[in-house]
């Protein structure tokens, strides 16, 4: 049967996949067509005139506003209805309907006491609705958190219409509009560039690439994502200016398509939802089984059909844990609240636990593992590699700055730099200030600002005469500038130059060593090569720096430097040193990755960066551990071809986007299986092969529970597909946040580890909570079974059961969520979702057949005591039911010969309900104490450490007293003021529960793996 299900499942999945692929390919074709169409349309808005306003209005009418439509949410009433239609809820609806029917029949017959059924029906419906409202409110609240992230400030765009430049709302842009963008702007739509000047665009929100892309009017590639003449909606223009025509708006933009792709990916059920469904099915099944069995038994014994139906209903009410769903929801939301304090906002409550069962984390590199800002990491001068301080708060060690060479190098780095701080940021620490300029210049500016001091003023002192910037179009990889010297007496000009190290070295003839200019001999060239290779292998971007004092006679003051002609010396310079930069890992990440490793969680890195950089960062943060080798490493070490290496010897593996594209899914599975340390680099964002999505699917095929972190729109399908998608709160795009289940407010990977810990804790505690809640179902059920079979007066009423389920026992079961972990849960492997169930066989057996049985005995002892002390001996009770419940029998004799009216018997019955209730309460106090731990002795865990639990017990007792002794209770909830000693009758059984469980735990601790452990550890 399972096999068949499996097959069907696979088939379904395949179908789905084919569909998705078709859709994706269709999309790509469409895109190509769109770009062709727009080539022809270009004439319309060309020539600086733009569209006419009327034409624009017409197109706007046709295409709709230029905004991403939020994915169609489920209608609110459907969400609410879903809360009312779970497995348990359905069962309770059935019970309520039976109550109504019974009430209807009895009312028409005029039977006394038929209103009980009506009240019961109303209570049941209230329970379902209130629980539903609670769940709905939780969902609603988390949706609100997300809504608050949305940027409400409307975006502006500079558009040319009717030949005039206008600032309009980006929402009103239409296809064909001519727009201008400049550094700092967000690109307002998909735009084909027709004019650009030094325009660079940050595509990271789309592709995850941190490298800025330059945009020019030339079409360089047929793939719209690769070509240089298309800028995409929602990316940011870093510098330069550009003009272009709008080719796509709104949901038809690339980003819109990716976003809609995400909503197409089915949301996986969370593991906890599967667990809860699993055991709700069991409970519902058992309830119906019990109910039906006793229905048949009752019919067989000779009860009327209606009576048998009422028995069925009562058994359902007794057996279904009405308060359980509320308990689970409250426990999860408590943890969610706790996590929110630690900067993890949970959108979907169940995601809290998912994090705990996660076995693979696919993490984006940029911004999550790293700080997302280029920082100077190393310097090479005086033939030594110096390490710079890359910590976020500059708390690390700095290098020796006494050398004269350092001063020259810093001067070159500071002067040959176009980046500037935005004004009015003096109060901010330097690393946090906003800089206008590209990443590496920003890094150098901040570095020199930290090392030398106020760079703006410093540059004033060395007045710039001319500058030749990087120019990617003519492949000039160098940048140089000429400055006057700060000493007004020195009339020489200083030429400073930076660029690709080998190109810089070509132009040098000397090198600075300890402040002395030395001829650039072979020995220095070799030293340079070694340093360059070393830094390169760290995945860092290396720049070379050199300078020269121009000859005073040849270049006197007032000499006309021409940046185009280059009419000055550009060779025979003096080499100052190398500076290398990297986007450094966040300080907390290596530790967090280590914790993940001890917790048995694999961290897989997925990045758009170069494989070498990716690998270096992976090694840096511990994703690739020390001593791990890739296949290529082994090949180099053993000097054998890559093909001959046994792939299983390599722990680590770096797979680039290109390789990934060519791999079949089986190959990818195999790779993930055989290499524990995986890095995916240079993953291209092309939607048909969204790499994170493929990786996630592969991990899931291997049975892992996958968490994915991401911020870009391109990540959103993977976030959705993952068991738990984690979006970045600061850097994350709205699409990513929408697709995610959880949001890290501080973008910090370390917060995930906290989340994992909390998730595991809540799984443990939910187990305890559920065990506690399930236990009392047996002492609630047995009175009915005995009542039906042995025909004693009813020991426990339905309303009393509901009082236990919904009033007195809720608080203690929730308080178990505050229990501390029993052991170091972060040293255990993640649970195996197939084997470590939330509710397993031994938990159910222990709760139902052992603790529940003891509680039932306690209840019956107290029941028979109360009956006997009022005059009804136990043996008389047996078989008494039909007389006892005979409304016309007003003189039923008890064991002493006294005669009781029906009403007197009824109040006695309520007294029985109450003593049974009290027995369950007393036993449940013992139960909540034993549930604090599953393995440790309670004396090890501490009796009073969980303050909430202690107050819950006090609350439970107070509520019990209120129900018993509040005037009016007998006729409202069928509680009677009972005698003090009946509180003490169940205490021996409470002690028995406690002692028995201590013995159980002792056996479990002393003999792990034994029969006792297997049968009794849950």
């Amino acid at each position: 049967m399972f096999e068949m299900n499996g097959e069907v499942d696979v088939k379904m999945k395949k179908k789905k996949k084919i569909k998705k692929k078709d859709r994706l390919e269709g999309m790509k074709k469409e895109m190509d067509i769109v770009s062709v169409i727009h080539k022809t349309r270009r004439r319309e808005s060309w020539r600086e005139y733009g569209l006419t306003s009327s034409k624009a209005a017409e197109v706007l009418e046709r295409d709709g506003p230029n905004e991403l439509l939020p994915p169609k949410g489920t209608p609110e009433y459907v969400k609410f209805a879903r809360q009312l239609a779970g497995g348990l809820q359905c069962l309770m609806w059935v019970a309520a309907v039976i109550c109504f029917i019974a009430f209807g029949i009895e009312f028409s017959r005029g039977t006394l006491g038929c209103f009980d059924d009506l009240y019961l029906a109303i209570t049941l419906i209230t329970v379902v609705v209130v629980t539903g409202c609670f769940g709905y409110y939780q969902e609603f609240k988390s949706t609100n958190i997300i809504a608050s992230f949305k940027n409400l400030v409307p975006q502006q765009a500079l558009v040319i219409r009717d030949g005039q430049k206008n600032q309009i709302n980006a929402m009103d842009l239409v296809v064909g509009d001519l727009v201008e963008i400049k550094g700092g702007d967000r690109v307002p739509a998909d735009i084909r560039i027709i004019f650009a000047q030094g325009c660079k665009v940050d595509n990271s929100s789309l592709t995850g690439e941190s490298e800025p892309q330059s945009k020019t009017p030339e079409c360089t590639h047929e793939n719209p994502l690769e070509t240089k003449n298309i800028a995409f909606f929602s990316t940011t223009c870093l510098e330069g200016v550009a003009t272009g025509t709008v080719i796509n708006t709104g949901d038809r933009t690339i980003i819109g398509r990716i976003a809609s792709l995400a909503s197409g990916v089915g949301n996986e059920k969370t593991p906890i939802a599967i667990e809860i469904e699993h055991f709700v099915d069991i409970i519902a099944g058992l309830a119906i089984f019990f109910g039906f069995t006793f229905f048949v038994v009752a019919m067989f014994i000779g009860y009327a059909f209606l009576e048998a139906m009422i028995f069925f209903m009562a058994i359902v009410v007794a057996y279904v844990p009405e308060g359980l769903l509320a308990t689970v929801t409250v426990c999860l939301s408590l943890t969610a609240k706790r996590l929110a304090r630690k900067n993890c906002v949970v959108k979907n409550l169940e995601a809290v636990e998912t994090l705990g069962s996660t076995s693979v984390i696919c993490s984006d590199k940029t911004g999550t593992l790293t700080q997302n800002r280029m920082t100077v990491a190393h310097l090479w001068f005086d033939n030594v590699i110096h390490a710079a301080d890359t910590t976020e708060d500059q708390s690390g060690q700095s290098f020796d700055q006494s050398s004269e060479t350092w001063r020259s190098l810093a001067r070159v780095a500071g002067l040959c730099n176009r980046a500037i701080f935005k004004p009015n940021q003096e109060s901010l620490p330097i690393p946090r200030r906003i800089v206008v300029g590209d990443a590496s210049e920003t890094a150098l500016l901040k570095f020199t600002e930290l090392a030398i001091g106020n760079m703006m003023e410093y540059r004033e002192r060395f007045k710039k005469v001319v500058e030749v910037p990087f120019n990617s179009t003519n492949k000039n990889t160098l940048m140089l500038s000429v400055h006057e010297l700060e000493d007004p007496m020195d009339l020489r000009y200083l030429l400073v130059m930076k660029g690709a190290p080998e190109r810089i070295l070509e132009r040098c003839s000397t090198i600075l060593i300890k402040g002395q200019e030395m001829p650039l001999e072979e020995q220095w060239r070799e030293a340079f090569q070694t340093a360059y290779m070393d830094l390169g292998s760290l995945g860092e971007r290396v720049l070379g720096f050199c300078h020269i004092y121009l000859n005073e006679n040849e270049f006197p003051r007032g000499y006309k430097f021409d940046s185009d002609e280059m009419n000055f010396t550009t060779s025979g310079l003096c080499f100052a040193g190398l500076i290398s930069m990297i986007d450094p890992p966040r300080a907390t990440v290596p530790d967090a990755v280590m914790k993940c490793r001890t917790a048995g969680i694999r961290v897989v890195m997925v990045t758009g960066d170069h494989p070498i950089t990716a690998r270096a960062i992976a090694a840096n943060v511990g994703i690739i551990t020390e001593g791990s080798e890739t296949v290529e490493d082994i090949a180099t070490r053993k000097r054998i071809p890559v093909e001959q290496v046994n792939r299983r010897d390599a722990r680590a593996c770096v797979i680039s986007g290109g390789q990934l594209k060519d791999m079949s899914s089986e190959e990818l599975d195999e790779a993930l299986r055989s290499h524990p340390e995986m890095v995916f680099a240079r993953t291209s964002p092309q939607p048909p092969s969204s790499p994170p999505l493929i990786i996630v699917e592969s991990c899931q095929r291997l049975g892992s529970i996958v968490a994915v972190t991401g911020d870009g729109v391109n990540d959103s399908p993977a976030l959705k597909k993952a068991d738990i998608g984690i979006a970045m709160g600061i850097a994350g795009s709205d699409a990513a946040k929408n697709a995610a289940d959880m949001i890290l407010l501080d973008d910090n990977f370390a917060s995930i580890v906290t989340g994992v810990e909390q998730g595991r804790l809540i799984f443990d505690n939910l187990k305890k909570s559920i065990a506690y809640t399930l236990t009392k179902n047996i002492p609630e059920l047995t009175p009915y079974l005995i009542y039906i079979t042995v025909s004693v007066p009813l020991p426990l009423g339905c309303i009393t059961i509901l009082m236990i389920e919904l009033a007195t026992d809720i608080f203690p079961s929730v308080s178990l969520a505050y229990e501390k972990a029993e052991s170091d849960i972060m040293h255990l492997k993640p649970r195996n979702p197939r084997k470590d169930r939330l509710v397993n066989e031994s938990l159910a057996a222990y709760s139902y057949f052992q603790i529940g049985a003891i509680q039932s005995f306690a209840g019956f002892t107290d029941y028979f005591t109360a009956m006997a002390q009022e005059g009804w001996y136990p043996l008389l009770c047996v078989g008494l039911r039909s007389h006892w419940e005979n409304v016309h029998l007003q003189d039923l004799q008890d064991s002493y010969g006294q005669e009781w009216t029906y009403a007197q018997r009824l109040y006695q019955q309520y007294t029985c309900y109450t003593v049974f209730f009290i027995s369950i309460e007393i036993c449940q106090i013992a139960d909540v104490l034993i549930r604090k731990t599953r393995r440790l002795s309670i004396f090890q865990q501490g009796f009073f450490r969980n303050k909430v639990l202690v107050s819950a017990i006090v609350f439970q007792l107070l509520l019990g007293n209120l129900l018993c002794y509040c005037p009016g209770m007998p006729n409202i909830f069928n509680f009677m003021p009972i005698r003090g000693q009946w509180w003490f009758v169940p205490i021996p059984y409470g002690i028995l529960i406690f002692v028995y469980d201590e013995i159980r735990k002792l056996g479990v601790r002393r003999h792990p793996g034994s029969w006792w452990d297997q049968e009794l550890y849950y």
Partner: protein
Amino acid sequence: MSTKEETPAADGDKPQTSSWKDSIYNPRTGEFIGRTAKSWALILLFYLVFYGFLAGMFTLTMWVMLQTLDDNIPTYRDRVASPGLVIRPRSLDIVFNRTDPKQYGQYVQHLENFLQQYNDTVQEKNELCMVGEYYEQDDQEEKKVCQFKRNLLRQCSGLSDTTFGYAEGKPCVLVKMNRIIGLKPRGDPYINCTAKRESPLQMQYFPSEGRFDKMYFPYYGKNLHSTYVQPLVAVKLLLTKEDYNNELTMECKIEGSDLRNSDDRDKFLGRVTFRVKVVE
């Protein structure tokens, strides 16, 4: 990693063998519903011991509890502080045709049976007690019973009129008070019946004025007072021709004492309501 081992085992080796039948009996492992015979034996033994112990503990606590009980007086009598009223014949709807003995025969038979214990042959063994005084015998080992002879009920005794007036259309109803151990009603309790209609109904009470004499109290319980008989009050409804074929609602209350007769929840505490309809 676990999937690696599981997948080939499930798909490769024996694809057909793992069916639902295995979940009941798996011949390869010898498992019956997920457990081997030995495992079943162990777990059943465990539960046998466990429930054996529980049953033992239950029996012990019940035994201890029963030891604390007095054989003659219930530990508490607060649930039955005040007695209920009951009528004989045991029916709250007395409907009959006075000309048809078959219809009233059941009532007559019932009354006759009920009054057997009040026969002179039985009652003559009992004491003649002081009228108007409680017959207290707390210190006596053997509790005696006061005589209540059937003939005290006169026309309703079934001695002179064996049909208890049913044949003549003037039926007798016996009102009885529930036995409560140790109950000593203060005052002078008597039964007062009223017909719920505008004009009063003629009635005769036996013994006269419908009194319960104090000598029949207190009651000492089934054990000590095994031959005890409750005092009775008979009400003879003197229906006339006009009353026939009409349903008549009667309410009898105990009055003249501290016994409660107007409880909201208990309609039978010190009172009883019944309907009578005589057809001609």
